[in-house]
């Protein structure tokens, strides 16, 4: 049986935790709003440039650009896994990491799959599970800039053109809402023009200065923008997951407080009853003494 003092102490402690989780929820909500705005404003560019690039790629034979051309040998895959640096976001990070590994396994037995980890939490998850990591991205991922995405894009393009990897995937969580983020793979390289919505009325189309030059210059931009977008989607998703997790934690704290409060009241009631019984008993005794 817990003492009343112990219960009082626990209620106070849980209330403190509840306040902290509520505050964290508010912080995550405020940050989410910002991240979401950043994501929303980055999406049109990403969508447009993807549209333009894929259309152009569909109209062009793949021999025009090394980034369109599938490699002759087709063994090594690179999966770039996007997670965050900070925890307390439910199973957001581990979910992405685990699903990335699943995806890597599904690529086939004969393939050699490497993982490039972005974000500390995904890296830790991989260490925990003993999955070898090819490389780790060392910069902090929160509030990432376009320039950083560009550096990463350059590295990736280099790997592809030097034929160190034959396929490169991005694995990140697409942000739908604070409650819903879905990890998904995206084939970055080689560019797959099958996804292009080739317009029926293509007809006459001028490319200046030339189709090849245009492709050579636009493909790196497309890759940069896809990577930047993956960063932003993950960031928004992380904050959304944190908000949900903290909200659930605050609700749980409320439940625990209620439970303890009930116990506390019961004990207090028993104590009061005992006291009354004692007083009444004492009074009885006094009354009896008075009679004699």
């Amino acid at each position, binding site marked *: 049986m817990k003492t009343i003092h112990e219960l009082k102490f626990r209620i106070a402690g849980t209330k403190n935790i509840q306040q902290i989780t509520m505050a964290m929820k508010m912080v995550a909500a405020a940050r989410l709003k910002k991240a979401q705005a*950043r994501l929303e*404003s980055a999406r049109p560019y*990403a969508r447009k440039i993807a549209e333009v690039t894929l259309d152009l790629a569909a109209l062009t034979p793949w021999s025009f650009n090394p980034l369109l051309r599938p490699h002759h040998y087709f063994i090594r895959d690179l999966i770039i896994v996007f997670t965050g640096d900070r925890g307390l976001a439910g199973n957001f990070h581990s979910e992405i990491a685990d699903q990335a590994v699943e995806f890597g396994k599904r690529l086939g037995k004969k393939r050699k799959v490497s993982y490039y980890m972005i974000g500390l939490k995904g890296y830790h998850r991989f260490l925990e599970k003993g999955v070898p990591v090819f490389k780790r991205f060392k910069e902090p991922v929160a509030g990432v800039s376009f320039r950083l995405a560009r550096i990463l894009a350059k590295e990736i393009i280099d790997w592809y053109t030097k034929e160190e990897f034959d396929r490169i995937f991005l694995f990140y969580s697409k942000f739908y809402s604070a409650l819903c983020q879905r990890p998904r793979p995206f084939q970055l390289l080689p560019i797959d023009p099958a996804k292009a919505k080739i317009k029926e009325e293509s007809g006459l*189309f001028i490319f200046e200065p030339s189709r090849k030059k*245009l492709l050579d210059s*636009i493909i790196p*931009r497309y890759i940069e*923008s896809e990577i930047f977008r993956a960063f932003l989607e993950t960031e928004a998703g992380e904050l959304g997951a944190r908000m949900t997790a903290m909200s659930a934690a605050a609700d749980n704290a409320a439940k625990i407080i209620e439970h303890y409060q009930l116990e506390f009241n019961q004990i207090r009631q028993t104590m009061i009853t005992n006291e009354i019984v004692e007083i009444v008993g004492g009074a009885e005794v006094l009354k009896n003494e008075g009679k004699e």
Partner: protein
Amino acid sequence: MPETNSWNGTDRILLEVVTPTKVELRKEVDYVVAPTIQGMIGIMPRHIRLMTILDTGVLRYKINDENFYMAVSEGYMEVMPHKVIVLAEAAELAENIDVEQALAEKRQAEAELYRPMAEKISFARAQVNLQWALTKLQVAKKHHHSKEDK
């Protein structure tokens, strides 16, 4: 079937200027002049489909005989009969340009260019920065003049 326009009964172009971080402009205009790497080109409604590379420079557009200017940095332009999409790395509307800041950027880029070769971090970077600062100043100036004319 050619695309038809519903607005005003006249031919117009929907001009969209999009950067990686923002949709900078979305407006119906009568005429666009854009700086491509092969020189300025003017686009009127019903232009043939075209895709081209943009240079850092001044983008001009006209609405009801009034000129508007904006600074765009390297990017791409896709032209359709009634739509022009500009995908630029950076873009700024004339009224949003901070002249003081642009001047500071210009000075900084120039200082970078004049430094001894061994100390230079990136010549190309400094050149790009200088070009961008100059373009912004040019746009601000044009914007100012067109206001004075009125």
